[in-house]
């Protein structure tokens, strides 16, 4: 396994060569290929909310794998519609768009927001050619006494980083010139 990974997989994760190879799990426990047991407080980075190999989950996966796995979105299937009703019944939302990951969901949200802004602008004025297209997100500034020295080192790096982002756009503003602890 290790040779196959080292020779055939793009190294984006930098896993240590001697890190465990996990082979199976049950509930909150996983085992590696050497039989070592681990209590899993990662859950695959907040993914495995029912733990590993939960019986209800396994039953559902086996049932659907044995019936119908994938047809593309050319056609109707039932489970997605049922899930959409459950999701919209339990929160503010009225509609669901499915994709395959968190980053895809955020990409979809950017597209939906831009289309919404376009539709809104054109509803007011059919001939509109400009509308809101930009985005804002948040970083958190932490104030800590013990980081002062390390943080001060990074101020020139932060300023250089801001200059190197090109081209600066009318709506881009540099973060305040506070120390930045890059890791």
């Amino acid at each position, binding site marked *: 396994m290790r040779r196959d990974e080292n020779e055939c997989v793009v190294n984006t994760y930098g896993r240590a060569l001697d890190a465990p190879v996990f082979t199976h799990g049950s509930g909150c426990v996983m085992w590696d290929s050497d039989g070592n047991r681990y209590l899993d407080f990662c859950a695959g980075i907040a993914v495995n909310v029912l733990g590993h190999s939960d019986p209800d989950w396994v039953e559902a996966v086996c049932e659907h794998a044995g019936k119908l796995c994938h047809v593309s979105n050319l056609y109707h299937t039932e489970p997605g519609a049922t899930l959409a009703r459950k999701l919209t019944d339990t929160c503010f939302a009225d509609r669901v768009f499915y994709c395959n990951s968190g980053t895809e969901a955020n990409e979809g*949200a950017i597209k939906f927001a831009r289309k919404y802004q376009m539709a809104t602008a054109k509803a007011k004025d059919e001939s509109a050619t400009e509308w809101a297209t930009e*985005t804002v997100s948040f970083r958190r*500034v932490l104030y800590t006494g013990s980081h002062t020295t390390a943080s001060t080192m990074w101020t020139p790096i932060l300023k250089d980083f801001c200059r190197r982002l090109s081209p600066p756009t009318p709506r881009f503003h540099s973060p305040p010139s506070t120390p930045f602890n890059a890791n």
Partner: protein
Amino acid sequence: MYGTTLSNCFHGRTLGSLNLTWKEAYRTPFAPLSPGHAFATYGDLDSARSAIVKGKTAAVFVEPVQGEGGIFPADGAFLSGLKEICDDAGALLVFDEVQCGLGRTGYLWGHQSVGVTPDIMTVAKPLAGGLPIGAVLTTQAVADAIAPGDHGSTFAGGPLVCGAANAVFDRVNSPGFMENVVKRGEQLRSGLRAKLEGCDCVKEVRGSGLLVGVQLDVPAGPLVGQARDRGLLILTAGAGDVIRLLPPLVVSEEEVDIAVAIIADLVKAL
């Protein structure tokens, strides 16, 4: 004397989402990214007001409970103020609940802990309990703007993945499930606080439900390998100085005690 660090919001690594993701190391090798994005400061409504511009800002993305950035519970006053700013500016408010959604915080959705609703919510990680899935949940007003052909995905919403997701949702939404999340979360935080009392390097134990962080003033990275050697898998967050704990939501009382004991031993030995 105080210094500051800037911690990461994380919204993804594909090129569009990468604009929203703070961490320099994730972004700069792939420049130029799209123009037209600004970062404001979480918790600072003045910073938000200055970054969110009517006629320019289409959408504002925020994690109501920050995970990658260091485990910070939802700030109701900030989120409510942010919603007002977005509404005034005509910008859509997007809550990224990819990590904190579906029961992780002790509420079905993280924003329900502060009663502020967005225009769009993105979810993913736990939704199908391990199979790849994501979802964009929108108001009717947003959905009305979307026409056939605007967007799509070959694999999305298939019967196998959604079959798994239905099983997960039914369990998470079942009576008593959330009580365990709340109880185990409180047990984890109070257990850590009690055992780590007096440790100079521990600044705070915080979190919501079973999204728990231990803020250190030293790097938490070395503890990951040490914990693994002791049979416990943990993560880090923030500027690398936060121990991040994300057990399955079905974790037991005994398992929490074991984790607390191992973490306490390792932190005390720092």
